[in-house]
């Protein structure tokens, strides 16, 4: 599983880790009952404070996305994520796009129209993976 964090991103690091894990679950790179990397492994890999990784895992557990099994690790709980989680991810992306639009003095309606137009121009190849 590939997790990338960016210190220029306004999201706190633990939120970035949570978002990356959600993304991995939605994309299927992390399946049900699969273990997440250990706190140590991920902290060393990302060069972050282990407490930050623990915080991300705790928060994911609170949201019912993973479960910590004592002494065994942290596991993906439920692929029910699919529907709800895809929607949540889309909302996050939308919020970021909206913030960016506001910065440029654009309103939500203008942004929605522009996304519609851009999507119509965009011809994805058949059967995208």
């Amino acid at each position, binding site marked *: 599983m590939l997790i990338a964090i960016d210190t*220029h991103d306004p999201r706190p690091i633990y939120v970035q880790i949570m978002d990356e894990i959600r993304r991995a679950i939605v994309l299927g790179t992390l399946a049900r009952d699969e273990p997440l990397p250990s706190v140590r492994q991920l902290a060393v890999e990302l060069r972050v404070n282990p407490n930050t990784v623990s915080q991300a895992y705790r928060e994911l557990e609170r949201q019912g996305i993973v479960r910590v099994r004592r002494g065994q690790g942290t596991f993906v709980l439920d692929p029910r994520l699919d529907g709800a989680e895809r929607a949540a991810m889309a909302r996050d992306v939308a919020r970021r796009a909206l913030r960016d639009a506001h910065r440029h*003095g654009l309103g939500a309606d203008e942004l929605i129209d522009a996304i519609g137009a851009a999507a119509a121009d965009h011809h994805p190849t058949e059967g995208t993976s």
Partner: protein
Amino acid sequence: MTGPIPIRLPDGDRAIATRGIAKRFGRQVALRDLTLDVPLGAVYLLVGPNGAGKSTSLKVLLDLVRADDGTAEVFGLDVRTDAPAVRANIGYVPERHDWGYGWMRVGRLLEYHAAYYPTWDRAYAARLTELFELSLDRRLRKLSKGQARRVHLVMALAHRPALLLLDEPTDGLDPVMRDEVLGVLAQHLTESPTTVLLSTHHPTEVETIADHIGVLRDGELRAQVPLATLGRHLRRYRTEVPEGWSSPATLDGAVLRRVVTQREIQWTVWGEEPEIMRQLTSSGVVVRESAPLSLHEATLALLDPRG
């Protein structure tokens, strides 16, 4: 500045607590009324320009420098009256490396150093020496600045002390070695419960492993907060201003900066975001963006002499 920027942390278990530390060197004031709160288990960045008093602060904790005034405690022990016990619990990487025995070889130095620490972890020291690409038969005087820094890191880490005092630990390291050191520190924190006080004038190099920050200028703390709080409360608001608009009498926060361009004002403000937003909006401006500052920008804003 109408200052709600915190310079004290909420009560809790402390690894380090100093109260009103003052230090002069001749006429030069190095520290004035320094009150450091380093929570147990924190990775605390002490940032500030050269000459702000960062190194002196660390030396006071080791009793290498005696304060003129104030008290300093490490794990509840007074650093002056209990200096040996305090030092036994500390791993220190100094800013400067004056070996004084340049003929000595690295391996010999490490053995000599190990003898002082009953908790010295031989296997760990060997692993670090290898990771840091240090050769044991090299003489100390032949070490580059970066190599000397790594030797000190091995000496500081391998006895797994409860407190690490790291003075500019990434100074003189190339990007690859800097990254290696961060990885080592991250791993060290998962293996041994450690509090870290790390001084740096390049906070962005080490921000991912940190959770607290103290901003020091002219021997005084300008801010002392958890990094998460900094991200939430120190923000830039880009606002669009209607013609003939006059500034609100007060903003219920600390305005650190206000940059005015033609129809836009950028405010750098410390405060609760919803409240600042409300006040800006009710003053008649349109808030286009509210975003946290990067650590680099935040440090600059907090160090701004106009503040």
